[in-house]
């Protein structure tokens, strides 16, 4: 290779090194999600608290309602109140470490799309919710639920849980990003998340009521559609609005 040719070959490499490498949104999402999960694995905090909270809530419901077994609408209500309040614990922690330890500033300095942060946080919350449901729902069935659902009903319940979880994760991330910069973070999170979740709870408990009753009823498709519509609209809203919450 002659000298000019060699020079030409090295030019792109050196210019590449001076310009910051553009990281794709997907790679950034994966990196942040990996960070969140690693953090939780190394110092389990949120998941443990959510699981303990759910178990305690079932015991409290047993004594408060003075019932040994639950079915139908009452069972759906107890399950969804517990899961929503447990989700609130996870939502409240969502951005705290990033703000306190400067992770948020670091992310904003990085040349990546902010949507990656939204996606990673939603996925983290989703993973947390699914993880505690894997513990809390069987525990609920064991402790309180009387007619054990059939295999098909379990599958449908899983679909209802997944659709509701997506909605809770999206709303939770949006509110958590907002609340982390306020003075009264915990107060703002709870009072904002709960009313925004009411349509989700309506849909989820209506859809799971027949699954938790005696009989072979399935989840009404109309309620699954309402949940999916809610997820879609709030997903789009969060995508459009998230940049304004992490601008500075």
């Amino acid at each position: 290779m002659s000298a000019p040719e060699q020079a030409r070959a090295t030019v792109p490499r050196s210019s590449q090194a001076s310009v910051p490498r553009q990281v794709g949104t997907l790679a950034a999402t994966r990196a942040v999600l990996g960070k969140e999960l690693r953090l939780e694995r190394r110092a389990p905090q949120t998941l443990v608290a959510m699981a303990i909270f759910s178990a305690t809530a079932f015991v409290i419901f047993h004594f408060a309602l003075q019932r040994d077994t639950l079915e139908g609408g009452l069972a759906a209500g107890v399950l969804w109140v517990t899961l929503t309040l447990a989700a609130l614990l996870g939502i409240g922690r969502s951005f705290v470490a990033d703000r306190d330890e400067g992770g948020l500033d670091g992310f904003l300095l990085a040349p990546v799309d902010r949507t990656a942060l939204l996606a990673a946080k939603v996925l983290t919350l989703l993973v947390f919710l699914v993880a505690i449901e894997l513990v809390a729902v069987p525990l609920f069935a064991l402790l309180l639920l009387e007619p054990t659902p059939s295999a098909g009903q379990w599958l449908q319940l899983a679909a209802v849980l997944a659709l509701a979880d997506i909605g809770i994760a999206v709303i939770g991330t949006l509110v958590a990003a907002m609340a982390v910069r306020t003075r009264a973070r915990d107060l703002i999170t709870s009072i904002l998340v709960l009313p925004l979740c009411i349509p989700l709870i309506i849909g989820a408990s209506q859809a799971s009521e027949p699954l938790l009753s005696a009989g072979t009823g399935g989840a009404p498709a109309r309620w699954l559609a309402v949940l999916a519509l809610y997820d879609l609209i709030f997903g789009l809203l969060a995508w459009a609005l998230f940049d304004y919450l992490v601008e500075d």
Partner: protein
Amino acid sequence: MPTSKRLYGNRLAILAPLATVVVLASLALAFFQAPIEADQGFSQKIIYIHVPLAITTLIGFIYGGICAIQYLRSGNPRDDLRSYTAIHQSLIFCIGALLTGMIWAKASWGQWWVWDEPTLVSFLIVFLLYCTYQPLRFSIEDPERQSRYAAVFAVVAGAFVPLNFIAVRLADPLIHPRVLGTAEGGLTNGMKPAFYLGILGALLLFFTLCRYEMANKHTRAQLKALKRRFGQDAPARAGRSSAPEVPAQ
């Protein structure tokens, strides 16, 4: 700092009397011209107040959301102020709609609160959500961020309103009289003028009150600017406010 002479007042001078006349005319029509309904009797007259309040509340919340979108696009503090006043006034109208709805429920079903009445329940949920608007603003110190976050909230809540209505309505059997839907169901010809004038009156009242609140905020900002111009220090505010600060024109 130059202060403009043209305040909101001149438009307010037209709007306020107009709103008064239309509201009084609609009430007069409702009480003296509209026929007494056969089923519910005199208590049915409350729809000429309740339904306009409810419709105006919803329009106001959605208008607040649209102003918030404009604020996010333009960054103009006036849009934020518009969004703030619209939501503030709508919240007051919402309380009115809830109270009149409860009175109506008591008169026609004998109970102050009925859960199987989807519209009333939806209003309660929407009311609870918008109640958090002021605490949210109040808990953010930086004014620019306060406006931006409040705008994000207003857009999310504006989208929430129709979704919530769909969910609550699907969840309950329909017993609320559909005043506007189903081919004018329930409204006879004699009732229509009072009813539509009532809606117009409530809307005019809403926009008059919004303008009034905005004029108030602008006047305060101008007063502050004038005081500063004449060498007085603006008095330090005790505590923070959830209302947006407007720059004097």
